[in-house]
């Protein structure tokens, strides 16, 4: 840190502040810099929020490398790659939307934000397809519990048990090069897969939650854009949402190879 900060240089605030500058700021520049610094610090907290899951991943992979090699055969790499492309493309449209806002091109802002939202929704749909596959084969940790919460049946009756689909597991393990497992070995491997699936759902689930929040915020920003709230001197909401959206992309850039791409 040095003695000065660009925004420390106060302009003359002789009562000529733009109307969108809040009362406690001296200038639009100070307000913008504060928002941006605040956003970056928030992104820092997001990085550390995910750090727990990456740590979970690293520790389990270091101690049980075989489980990860087996486990990734249960994931659908083409779908994961497709989602990577979708998310990076949405990052591009987001960056273009910020640029358009800076250049006062409001119509472009609206279009680009809409495309970004559509990409986010596409990502979620594909994610949903992947989750559905896991659900159908009873690979979701705690599936019995979840099914019980959402079941319409009389809660008095004993809940239906969801055991992982043995045939499904066996097929995928054969793909991973484990042919002719006897029942005991198979049971052991199914048990081991629980932590892998735990990591998979924790990482992708938390990421998906961020995508959903991002889409929600983007919708708000889109409405603001349609109402013409942005311009070359007041695009902070677009810019900040953009930073958040890029961070979501950034995390996926790591999640994808770590979970899907294990040779």
């Amino acid at each position, binding site marked *: *840190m*040095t003695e*000065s*900060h*660009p925004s420390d240089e106060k302009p003359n605030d002789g009562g000529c502040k733009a109307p969108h500058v809040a009362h406690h700021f001296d200038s*639009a*520049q100070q307000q*913008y*810099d504060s928002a*941006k*610094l605040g956003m*970056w*610090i928030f*992104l*820092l*907290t997001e*990085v*550390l929020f995910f*750090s727990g899951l*990456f*740590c979970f991943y*690293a*520790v389990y992979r*270091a*101690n049980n490398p075989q489980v990860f090699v087996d486990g990734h055969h249960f994931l659908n*790499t083409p779908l994961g*790659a497709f989602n*990577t*492309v979708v998310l*990076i*493309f949405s*990052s*591009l449209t*987001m*960056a*273009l939307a910020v*640029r358009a806002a*800076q*250049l006062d091109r409001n119509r472009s802002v609206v279009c680009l934000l809409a495309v970004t939202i559509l990409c986010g929704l596409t990502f979620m749909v594909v994610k949903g397809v992947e989750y559905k596959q896991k659900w159908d084969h009873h690979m979701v940790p705690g599936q019995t519990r979840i099914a019980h919460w959402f079941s319409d049946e009389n809660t008095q009756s004993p809940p239906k048990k969801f055991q992982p689909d043995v045939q499904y597991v066996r097929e995928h393990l054969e793909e991973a090069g484990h042919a002719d497992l006897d029942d005991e070995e198979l049971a052991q491997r199914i048990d081991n897969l629980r932590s892998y699936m735990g990591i998979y759902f924790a990482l992708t689930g938390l990421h998906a939650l961020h995508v959903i929040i991002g889409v929600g915020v983007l919708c708000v920003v889109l409405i603001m854009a349609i109402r013409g709230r942005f311009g*070359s*001197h007041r*695009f*902070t909401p677009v*810019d900040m949402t*953009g*930073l958040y959206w*890029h*961070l979501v*992309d*950034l995390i996926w*850039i*790591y999640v*994808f*190879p*770590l979970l*899907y*791409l*294990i*040779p």
Partner: protein
Amino acid sequence: MNNSSPSPQSASSGSDAALAHVVDIRVLLGVFAVLMVLTTITVSVSYFDFGALNLFVAISVATMKAALVALYFMHLRYDNLFYAFVLLVGVAFLGLFLSITMLDSVEYHPGVEAWQERTQ
């Protein structure tokens, strides 16, 4: 903070004091193209086994992609260097957390395995 970072005023919007730098559209599209190339690379190399290098390759490519997103899409290259510092602090603390925890876990894990074998 570094004052030599490009000042926000150097942006090119003509009117007085734009709040931040406007990135050239060709740069954004170029970065997107490179990101797509890197994605293709990382997916295709995953079908080959480089042994211990697998993870290294995957993480390196991911870091390159992440750096591109951060530098250009997130404007870090044009902004106050302090923002980049904030992000790097986050990565550094992630590294600290992960490395010490892993060091410990790898150290005590053989003991856990030995205990599991004894009790089975």
